[in-house]
C-alpha cells in the first residue's frame, strides 16, 4: 500500500471542503470539533501530503479516533474516496512507528500476524476462551482488574470478547450442501469471528441459500478476510490473507457468487481487486473474485427473495416488533440498505418499525471498543436509546461486530441484554424451520 505522501494528490484534492459530510460523521456529532470530522481529517492529510505537516502523534490519534464507518463517503456528493484515505493514513502511521511500544507491538503481532492469519490458531484460542467463559473466569478477570491486580487492556479484551459457540461452522454444516434442484452454485465464506461466535448464522445462511435453490460450498479451512488488518494499518498482513483466500479455490469458474454474511467483511472482500491490483500473480483472479462477492441479502434480492407463507398455526396475537440496524459497512460501504429490509418483510412474522438514526455507527467499528472505549460506549448508548424508543423487541443486525458490541453486557448499560439481536438471515431460517416442522 502507498504511503500518504505518495498518494495520488487528486484523491485528497477531490474534497472541496463543502462540509456536507459533517452531519453524517459520528465523531463530529460527538465533539463538534472540525478535526474530528472527515473534511478536518482530509485537511490534515492534505497538509501532510504537501509537506506542511509531519506525520505525528496528534494525527495518529485523530486517525485512531475515526471509526472508519465511511458514512461520510456514502454521503459525499463530490465522491471523495475516504476509504483509501483512511486506510493509507493508518498504514502510513504504522509504518512510521508513531505509536510504537513493545507491548502494543507484541499484541499486534500476536493477533494480526499469528492468530488471525491461521484459523486453526484462532479456533484454538476460541476453545480456550470458551472454557474461560463457561467457568465465568472472564468476569473474574474484570473483578481482578477493578482491584488493579490485572492489566486493564487484557481484562477488557477477554471480557468484551463475544460468547464462543459450542460448535464452529465446519461442525454445523457439510462442505457441500445441495438443494433438490439447484439453480445457482455459490461459495459461502464463513468468516473468522462469525465462525467462532456466530457459527449458527453460517448454518442459517446455508439453509436459506439452499431454500433459494443454491448449491452451497463451504470449505472447512477458511481464512479471515483481512479487513481487521487493513483498517488497523497492517496492509501487509491483509495482503497475505487476501492471497490465502484467493488460493482457497483452484478456480472460481462455475461459481455464481461468493457469499459473505458479515457486513464488515463483505466491503473489504469486494475490494480485493483494487487491493491486489499491482500483484501480477493475483490481480486477475482478484478481479474475478471481487466481481463475484455478494452480500447475502444482495444476492438473495438479485435472485428473488421467496416470500414465506404465513404459518396456518399462527394465532391472532399481535406480531413482535422488529427494527433493523444498518451496519456501516453494509449500508455505507456497500450501499446495501433496502435488501435486508426486503428479506425481513418477506417473512411476514414481525411488525417492522422504523429506527431513528438507523445508519449511525453503533461504535463497534472493528476493534474500536478496545482502542476508543469512551466514544464506543457513547455511540452504543445512543443506539440502544434509539432502539428502545422504536419499541422493537427484536433487532436485526447483519454484522458480527455490531452484534457483539450491542449485546455485550456492561455494568453501565443493562438494556443491551434485554434486547434480542438476530441476523436477518437467522430470523428467516428460524421461520423456515418452523414452517417445515409444522408441515411434517
Amino acid at each position: 500500500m502507498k504511503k500518504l505522501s505518495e498518494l495520488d494528490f487528486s484523491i485528497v484534492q477531490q474534497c472541496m471542503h463543502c462540509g456536507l459530510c459533517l452531519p453524517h460523521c459520528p465523531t463530529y456529532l460527538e465533539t463538534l470539533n472540525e478535526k474530528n470530522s472527515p473534511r478536518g481529517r482530509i485537511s490534515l492529510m492534505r497538509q501532510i501530503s504537501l509537506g506542511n505537516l509531519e506525520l505525528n502523534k496528534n494525527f495518529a490519534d485523530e486517525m485512531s479516533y475515526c471509526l472508519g464507518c465511511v458514512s461520510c463517503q456514502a454521503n459525499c456528493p463530490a465522491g471523495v474516496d475516504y476509504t483509501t484515505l483512511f486506510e493509507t493514513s493508518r498504514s502510513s502511521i504504522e509504518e512510521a512507528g508513531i505509536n510504537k511500544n513493545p507491548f502494543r507491538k507484541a499484541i499486534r503481532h500476536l493477533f494480526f500476524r499469528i492468530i488471525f492469519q491461521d484459523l486453526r490458531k484462532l479456533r484454538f484460542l476460541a476453545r480456550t476462551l470458551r472454557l474461560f467463559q463457561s467457568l465465568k473466569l472472564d468476569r473474574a478477570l474484570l473483578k481482578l482488574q477493578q482491584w488493579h491486580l490485572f492489566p486493564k487492556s487484557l481484562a477488557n479484551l477477554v471480557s468484551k470478547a463475544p460468547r464462543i459457540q459450542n460448535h464452529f461452522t465446519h461442525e454445523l454444516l457439510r462442505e457441500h450442501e445441495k438443494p433438490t434442484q439447484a439453480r445457482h452454485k455459490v461459495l459461502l465464506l464463513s468468516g473468522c469471528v462469525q465462525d467462532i461466535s456466530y457459527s449458527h448464522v453460517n448454518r442459517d445462511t446455508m439453509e436459506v441459500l439452499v431454500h433459494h435453490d443454491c448449491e452451497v460450498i463451504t470449505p472447512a479451512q477458511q481464512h479471515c478476510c483481512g479487513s481487521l488488518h487493513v483498517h488497523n494499518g497492517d496492509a501487509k498482513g491483509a495482503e497475505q490473507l487476501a492471497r490465502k483466500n484467493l488460493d482457497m479455490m483452484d478456480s472460481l469458474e462455475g461459481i455464481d457468487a461468493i457469499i459473505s454474511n458479515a457486513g464488515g467483511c463483505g466491503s473489504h472482500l469486494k475490494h480485493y481487486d483494487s487491493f491486489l491490483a499491482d500483484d501480477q500473480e493475483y490481480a486477475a483472479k482478484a478481479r474475478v473474485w471481487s466481481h463475484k462477492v455478494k452480500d447475502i441479502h444482495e444476492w438473495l434480492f438479485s435472485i428473488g427473495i421467496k416470500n414465506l407463507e404465513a404459518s396456518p398455526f399462527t394465532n391472532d396475537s399481535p406480531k413482535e416488533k422488529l427494527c433493523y440496524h444498518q451496519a456501516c459497512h453494509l449500508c455505507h460501504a456497500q450501499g446495501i440498505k433496502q435488501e435486508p429490509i426486503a428479506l425481513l418483510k418477506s417473512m411476514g412474522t414481525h411488525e417492522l418499525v422504523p429506527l431513528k438514526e438507523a445508519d449511525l455507527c453503533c461504535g463497534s467499528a472493528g476493534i474500536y471498543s478496545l482502542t476508543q472505549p469512551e466514544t464506543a460506549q457513547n455511540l452504543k448508548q445512543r443506539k440502544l436509546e434509539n432502539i428502545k424508543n422504536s419499541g422493537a423487541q427484536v433487532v436485526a443486525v447483519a454484522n458480527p461486530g455490531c452484534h457483539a458490541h450491542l449485546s455485550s453486557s456492561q455494568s453501565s448499560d443493562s438494556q443491551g441484554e434485554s434486547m434480542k439481536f438476530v441476523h436477518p438471515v437467522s430470523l428467516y431460517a428460524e421461520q423456515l424451520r418452523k414452517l417445515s416442522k409444522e408441515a411434517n
Partner: protein
Amino acid sequence: MTVEKQFSPEALKELKALLGNPKQLLTQKEDLIPYSFDGTATLEKMPVAVAFPHSTEEVAALMKWAIEHKCPIVSRGSGTGLSGGSVPSDPSVVVCLTQLNRILEVDSKNLTLLAESGCITQSIFDAAAEVGLFYPPDPGSMKISTIGGNVAENSGGLRGLKYGVTRDYIMGLEVVMPDASVCWLGNKCVKDVAGYSLKDIFIGSEGTLGIITKVLIKLLPQPASRQTLLATYSKMEDAAATVSAIIEAKIIPCTLEFLDNITINCVEDFTHVGLPRDAAALLLMETDGHPQAVEDEIRAMASLAKIHNATTVQVAKNAEEAQALTTARRSAFSALARVSPTTILEDATVPRSELVKMIRFISEVGEKYSLRIGTFGHMGDGNLHPTFLTDETNHEEMERVEKAMVDIFDYAISLGGTITGEHGVGTAKKAFLPRSIGSIQMRLLRDIKKSLDPHNLLNPGKIFDA
C-alpha cells in the same frame, strides 16, 4: 493601527481562562488546520486559536480580550460559506459558535422561535415543524449550516421565489458589539418603527459589525399540501421560456430550480434518483399551500411546460419521491466536484426577465475561454450558479477563469443584476464590489463600519477594506 503579529503564551492563557472549560480553546497546529478554510475553493489561512463560547457572556469576554490585545476576531458557524467570509484573517482568533446551540423557545402564540446562533438550520426547521409551523429559508447546506451563519450571510435557498430569504424571517437579534457590549435589536412585534431598523444592518454583515449570539425567528403556518414536478428539455431556452410563462400566468411556485446537462449528470452519479442524463436542461418545480390551489397550480405548470416543448413532465408520486428530488438538487454544487479537482461557484443574479440572456452569455463565455461551466440555480428568482470546473494547480487555466468571472459579473451588472445573490462578498468577490454598487454606497459601507467597529477588529478585510 498596527496589529501585533504574535500573541504571547500569557495572552493565550488569559484567553483560555475566559472560557468555562480548557477544551473550549484550540491552539495546536493540527486543531487549527481544520479551521483554516470554509466551503470556498482555494482560500486558506491559519488562525491563532479557535474558541468555542458556550454563552453570550463568554462571547463578550472574548471580545473584551480582543480589544485589549488588538486581536481580530473572525466569527463562524459550521464553515460552509461560499465566499470566504469565515476564512481567518491574518492574524485572528476564530470564534466558532457551533457549541452555542440551544433552541430557547418556540412561541406558537406569536409564531416565533428563539435560538442561539450556533443552532443548525435544519434543527430550527424541525423544531418549528414539530408544532405545525414552518421556517422557509432552506440554503443548500441547511443540514449543517448554523442560523447565525445564515443571518450573517443573509442566505437564500430553494424557496426564495415565494418565501424570500433569511432576512424576511428575522424579528430580532442579540449581538455582541465590537466594544463588547451586548445589544438586543428587534422584538416579537409584527410592527415596530421605533428608530432605524438596526437589526437589518447586521443581517448580511458577514461578521464585520458584531457577533450574533441569539436569533428571534418569524415562523409561518405549515402549508397543508405540497407537490413537486420535474420537467426536462432538449433546449435550455425552452426551460427558461417555461419559467417566464409561469410567472406571467401569475403563479408563484415555492421552487423553480434549474439544472444544466453537466449538473444533471453529476447529481445523478451521486444520487441515482433517475434524472434523465441526456436532457439539456431540467426544471424542478414545487408548489405548496391549500390543497386545491396546489392542485390547480401544478396542473397549470405541467401544461405550460408541455406547451414550451418539455420532453417529459412528471409529477412526484409521493412525498418521499419529492423529497428525493429536492435532496438531489441540494447536492448539485458538491456533486459537480466529481468532474474536476476544483469547483469555483458563482452566484451572479439578474432580474428574472433577463435570465435567458444571462444563461446564453454564460455558455458563450465558457466557449470563449475554453472552460467547462456547469450551471444550475434558482431560476424563479434570477439567482444562477455558474460553476467553473477547473484545477487550481493549473495556473494558466485559473487565469482564464478569472477573466471569465469578470465578464460574467460585468454582464450581470449591465443587466441590472448583482455579483452575489446569496453567498455574500467575503473575500472572493471583494474586488468586484465597487463596480457593482458604486462609490457612494462604498463610502456608506465604510462609514457604518467605522462608526461601529472603529478598531477594525471584526472580520477585517472582508467585503471591503475598511
